[in-house]
């Protein structure tokens, strides 16, 4: 107790610095994957992607980031054995943050497909085992989280597959694909707005003190969907048929209809990423804050302050602006296979899956879900060539990240403990 009272401000300061470092890393490395399907399809420029990401990552973090943050903060560890030594939890959360950030830095300089989410979960578990004991880990919850890592890319892929098939049925495989695209385009835009806002608003947003009943959630989501669809409709209407481009590629004009539509999925994707991944950085920070504020109350029930989520959003935006745009630039030139229809299917599916996972508090990997969604489009025979070695890399990174994140966290934990006690 005395340790927290004595060094409380220092701990909080370190937590803020580590949290910012972690979210900066997410913005620098992760966002390129998030916006990749949009930039790669040529629907939006790198500059537009950065602006969209800055706004919607932030919004996603602030509006829908609470659930996953709670899981990282309280869902993984049962702190009851250390009620009398709350400083252990402080050291542990700081160690976990630092471990995840360091591991991510190593992995990203090597180009390994490591997930920020997996790193932080592995680090928190590692600290819990080393610092408290094997029983302190809520293994049931960990089982759920790990299952969600496998399920979420599959779900993203399935949704992308269905979307791609539906676009073919309703638009591409008709007498006049261009007119069909114009007719159905707003419906797809509606779907984007409706699904994302429904999942986000479902039963209200507690930390914003916004209480909504289930039918109210549906109503508000439908209204938001309609408003967005109307904007989409106005944008789609301005698309004209391009005879010259059609000669070379019959679906060139159809693809042009999907370009404005992709702006909405790009926003949705940035929002989804903000809602899930910001927790990786600010979850431990929130835990430290809670402990310091309550003077060492381990089982604190205090609500998550909004400024912490906003801080996370801020870190991501800074990472994006300082480094992320460089990674993003390489994407536009490398992914030429994603036409707007394919990019739309993949991005929409990934965004919906991530937001759904965020809502249920599951910390998932946005990048892996995006990979799953692109695979779904590929399974619909929609992509020229997919390199399956990436899947192998992802599986290896899963297996490696948990123990390495854990061991690093344990090391940092004992170091911090040694310094302050």
């Amino acid at each position, binding site marked *: 107790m005395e340790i927290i009272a004595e060094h409380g401000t220092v701990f909080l300061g370190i937590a803020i610095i580590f949290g910012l470092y972690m979210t900066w890393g997410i913005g620098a490395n992760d966002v390129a*994957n998030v916006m990749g399907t949009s930039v790669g399809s040529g629907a939006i420029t790198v500059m537009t992607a950065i602006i969209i990401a800055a706004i919607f990552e932030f919004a996603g973090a602030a509006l829908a980031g609470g659930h996953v943050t709670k899981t990282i903060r309280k869902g993984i560890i049962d702190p009851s054995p250390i009620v009398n030594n709350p400083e252990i939890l402080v050291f542990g959360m700081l160690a976990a943050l630092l471990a995840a950030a360091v591991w991510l830095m190593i992995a990203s300089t090597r180009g390994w497909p490591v997930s920020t989410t997996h790193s932080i979960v592995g680090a928190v578990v590692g600290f819990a085992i080393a610092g408290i004991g094997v029983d302190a880990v809520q293994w049931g919850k960990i089982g759920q989280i790990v299952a969600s890592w496998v399920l979420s890319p599959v779900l993203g892929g399935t949704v992308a597959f269905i979307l791609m098939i539906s676009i073919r049925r309703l638009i591409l495989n008709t007498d006049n694909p261009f007119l069909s695209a114009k007719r159905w385009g707003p419906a797809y835009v509606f779907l984007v707005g409706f699904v994302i806002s429904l999942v986000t608003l479902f039963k209200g947003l507690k930390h914003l003190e916004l209480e909504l009943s289930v039918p109210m959630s549906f109503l508000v989501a439908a209204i938001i969907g309609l408003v967005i669809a109307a904007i989409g409709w106005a944008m789609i209407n301005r698309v004209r048929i391009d005879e010259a481009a059609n000669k070379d590629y019959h679906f060139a004009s159809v693809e042009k209809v999907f370009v404005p539509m992709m702006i909405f999925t790009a926003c949705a994707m940035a929002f989804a990423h903000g809602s899930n991944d910001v927790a990786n950085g600010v979850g431990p920070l929130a835990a430290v804050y809670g402990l310091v504020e309550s003077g060492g109350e381990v089982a604190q029930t205090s609500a998550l302050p909004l400024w912490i989520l906003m801080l996370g959003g801020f870190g991501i935006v800074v990472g994006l602006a300082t480094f992320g745009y460089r990674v993003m630039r390489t994407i536009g030139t490398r992914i030429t296979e994603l036409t707007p229809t394919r990019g739309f299917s993949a991005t929409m599916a990934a965004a919906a899956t991530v937001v759904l996972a965020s809502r249920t508090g599951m910390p998932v990997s946005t*990048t892996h879900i995006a990979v799953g969604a692109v*695979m779904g489009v590929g399974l619909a025979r929609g992509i020229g*060539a997919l*390199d399956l070695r*990436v899947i192998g890399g992802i599986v290896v990174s899963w297996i490696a990240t948990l123990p390495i994140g854990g061991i690093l966290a344990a090391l940092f934990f004992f170091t911090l403990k040694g310094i302050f006690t």
Partner: protein
Amino acid sequence: MVKPSTLTSLFGRSPFKPMQEHIGVAARCAAQVPELFEALSAGDQERVVSIKDRIYELEQEADDIKNELRAHLPKSLFLPVDRRDLLEVLDMQDSIADTAQDIAGLLFERPMEVPEKLKDPLLALTHRCVDACDQAVKIIGELDELVETGFRGRESDRVSEMVAELNKIETDTDEMGTELTRRLFAQEDEMKPVSVMFWYELIQWIGDLADYAEKVGNRLRLLLAR
């Protein structure tokens, strides 16, 4: 140093653009063949040589594209079509360029004279064979659209029709080739026996241009969903 992101490394090099480039070059080889026989009829051996050189160059270019494509088609790639079927289409495309090269090679190695009575039907046959190759180019050009529609639906019907058209052109060339061969044999007594043999061979080869073009179409049809 910016490392490629996970998403970027998911995308392999699509084989379809190089496939289209390849048949474009192969068809350009075939398109030289009528000119080759025009030069030969005019007795302009210098032009024959320069056209032969151009065909050899184009054939080399086609080979390069083919090898590059094969090298970048490892088994770890997930393609919307069967890899082996695709490589067979490529082989057929390459045979067009090879055949044009064989024809040019023979005309260069053995100075031949075009019998007066064969001139017009011979040129007509070469032009019709070039038509077949051009049709194959158009069909392979539909690969982008086929990927977009998942190799099924209306687009796949369209391609089937184009293949049917190609088959018709090939049937034309068969008939023209038969007629030309009959004419050749009708005047075999007036020609050197060895010349007759080589002209017979050449007519077969010219016909092969259309045969391989047809096979490109037929093999491609195997890729369509049924």
